[in-house]
């Protein structure tokens, strides 16, 4: 999966969690939680959705790497390259 596709998947998952999320103004290097109405339970929803879609198990220690759209994409790039 390419970077752009990964980014689209992340945005799609966020949109599924909160369809009112304003993604068009999202700053890719700013923390998602500062820009969207997302809390820790929502982040776990993102983790669970990635697990369901791609059988990807993200260890809790890696959660900080999901903080921004860019860091999230970076983190997933190598893990989803064969998807």
């Amino acid at each position: 999966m390419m970077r752009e596709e990964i980014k689209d998947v992340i945005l799609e998952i966020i949109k599924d969690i909160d369809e009112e999320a304003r993604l068009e103004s999202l700053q890719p290097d700013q923390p998602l939680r500062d820009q969207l109405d997302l809390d820790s339970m929502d982040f776990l929803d993102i983790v669970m959705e990635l697990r369901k879609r791609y059988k990807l198990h993200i260890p809790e220690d890696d959660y900080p790497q999901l903080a921004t759209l860019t860091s999230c994409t970076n983190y997933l790039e190598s893990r989803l390259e064969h998807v």
Partner: protein
Amino acid sequence: MGQNSHRIVITGVGLVAPNANNLREFREKLLAGQSEIREVDIRYVGKVPAGLCSFPETKYRKKKENKRGTRAGCLGVYAAHESLHDAGIDFTEYKTERTGVYIGLTEHGTVETENEIYNISQFGYNIDYWTHHHNPRTVLNNPAGEITMSLGTTGPHYSIGAACAAGNCALIQGVQMLRLGEVDLAICGGISESTGSFGIFASFRAQGALAAHTDSTKACRPFDRDRNGIVISEGACVMTLERLDRALERGNKIYGEIVGYAVNSDARDFVLPYGPRQAECMRLALNRAGIEPGDIDIINTHATGTRQGDVEECRAINEVFNGCGSTFINNTKSIIGHTMGAAGLLELAGNLPSFFDGWVHPTINVDHIDPECEIANLVVNEAKKLDGVTTILNNSFGMVGINSVVIVKRV
């Protein structure tokens, strides 16, 4: 506190029923005997008659919150906001920390657990796919807690587990907490999300108590010779309770005063109801209200359309109200099905307008009265106009032998 501070009144009603999402519409449809019970396809069970609610689910909270929460929470949040709006309360005259939320539930967590097991069945029953939302969704205070989060009230909130007597019991809890001085405003409700649970349908079917009919609107037929069980419905009703003196000061409309109530236990059987104990419960409520059986204008029955349950209640009513020619009797479930934890309050709410319009809504689907269910003044198939209505008695009974009675009087 003033001399009327021990007198507790209902000043707001918010509801979601299978045929309405506000009291005005609900009342119109009850008077017309308009059932909107329909055939629903339930997972593993198949097609059965059931009552589903249609209402503006995002009127008071975001879709995101509805997805995170439960169906019970969604129903309850809507009904609670509607109730407070109806009561004219915006928390300028009451403090949020002096407001209690008491919600009656027949059960809770069944729907969420079934859904989650179904979810992991799609992943080989690997519990790594079990949702982190499970515990906050299934704790028993969930619907009441979701209501406090939406309203911003910080007083007590909890659920009252009382099978299908739960709505009445939540109302009674509110009365007691107001009289104890624990709160100044009580938001009392009954909620059912039971239509989301295949297990509840399957269990009634296994018990031989799940209604079936070619016409779903005719499936729930209490007192009829050909009744064959319960129609399960979802729903919610939330009533706003306050002390009479404060309500009079505020000048909002008052639906009625809760003048009597009682709860007792059969102590006999897991599922079978017991008329003599129901009769005791009605007498206890009448005694507390300081009134005679003949003072009751309307009895709203609990009858669910099961073979024995209806007979037991009719026996109890005949025993207590024998010879009371001015007491009329109806049944709301025949129109909306059995809304379980919501039943007590939804059914009471549907009758409160009788104080102002003088009508008794009918019991529908009584084509051939069961001789064992013969009770005087049963209002059958057509609404009946009375000269006046001042007092209503509401029965609500539940499994494992719980009986509840609430008596409301026009102020």
